[in-house]
């Protein structure tokens, strides 16, 4: 369970939002919306523990994420604005590197690449991939890593219609496995699930 308590974020001297509290249970999805510059990305990065909150705290199963440290990060998968893909490495090598040695069995990598339509590019350096393909490769990480909390910043950007449908499927599978998702998106998402939490930042 992820909890935010009285969260306040500041960029430079400019306050973005304050007194933000919510609670996200397993199997729930939170959709964060808001205009440009309202602090969506900052909120997501704060929830990851990359950015310090000016006040308040983020809790995972009751303990603050700074107390948990690496234990929290072992439950967390994040896809940000940048894809985190090294252009010199092939798609497969990139996925292996993302796992950092844990649970990287070849069959699962191959299956995932196939599902996301990246199988033909398996042995090409990733720099030849298109923007959308790179995005799909970044999202393939989610399927490989098997973490319970997914934090996704604009996961659907640069994706075509088919990929969006595919991605929605993957998100729903994750929720069905009692996973948690926090995401931002400009598109409407039609994920059928028990709960969708909408948070509007202004």
């Amino acid at each position, binding site marked *: 369970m992820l909890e935010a308590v009285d969260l306040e974020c500041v960029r430079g001297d400019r306050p973005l939002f304050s007194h933000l509290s919510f609670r996200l249970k397993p199997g729930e999805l939170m959709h964060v919306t808001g205009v440009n510059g309202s602090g969506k990305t900052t909120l997501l990065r704060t929830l990851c523990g990359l950015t310090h909150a000016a006040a308040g705290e983020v809790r995972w199963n009751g303990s603050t994420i700074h*107390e*948990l*440290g*690496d*234990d929290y990060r072992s439950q967390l998968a994040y896809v940000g604005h940048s894809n985190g893909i090294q252009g010199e490495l092939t798609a497969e090598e990139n996925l292996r590197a993302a796992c950092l040695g844990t649970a990287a069995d070849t069959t699962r990598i191959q299956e995932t690449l196939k599902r996301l339509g990246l199988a033909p590019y398996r042995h090409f350096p990733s720099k030849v991939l298109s923007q959308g393909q790179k995005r799909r490769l970044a999202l393939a990480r989610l399927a490989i890593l098997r973490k319970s909390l997914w934090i996704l910043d604009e996961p659907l950007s640069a994706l075509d219609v088919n990929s969006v449908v595919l991605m929605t499927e993957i998100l729903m599978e994750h929720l069905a496995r009692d996973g948690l998702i926090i995401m931002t998106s400009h598109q409407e998402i039609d994920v059928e699930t028990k709960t969708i939490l909408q948070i509007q930042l202004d």
Partner: protein
Amino acid sequence: MKTRHKRLAIIVTGVVGLTVAGLFVLNAFRSNLVFFYSPTEVLEGKVSVPAGKTIRIGGLVEKGSVQRSPDGLKVDFVVTDLNKKLPVHYEGILPDLFREGQGVVTQGRLQPDNTFVASEVLAKHDEKYMPPEAAQALKGGTFTPGGETKKP
């Protein structure tokens, strides 16, 4: 791995690393680091000085050894460490603190005939600061610097 164990691991590696560094520093202090050589080291061949290499010699200017040329620019003096004596030849302006019986560091080349031609002379002043009368008294043995003056 528990957070507590990780913290312990960090502390242990920190302590081990700093201890190793400390041991190396101690070892370095045991064998000495030199900035300049003494006349004894040079003349007894404890350091092999290749001909033509610039080195530094440190020691005291022997009393009564300073001889200046009439124009005052050429100076000959003897540097001693109270064991061996090394004649030094120098052309140029001497610093104010250059005095007989005082510490000096000269930089230059050792000649084959075991004399030294200096290209630079630097006076090394000691760490005592006191008024002239106190220094006078000190030489007479009636004054010791610092708090001990108050003793009857």
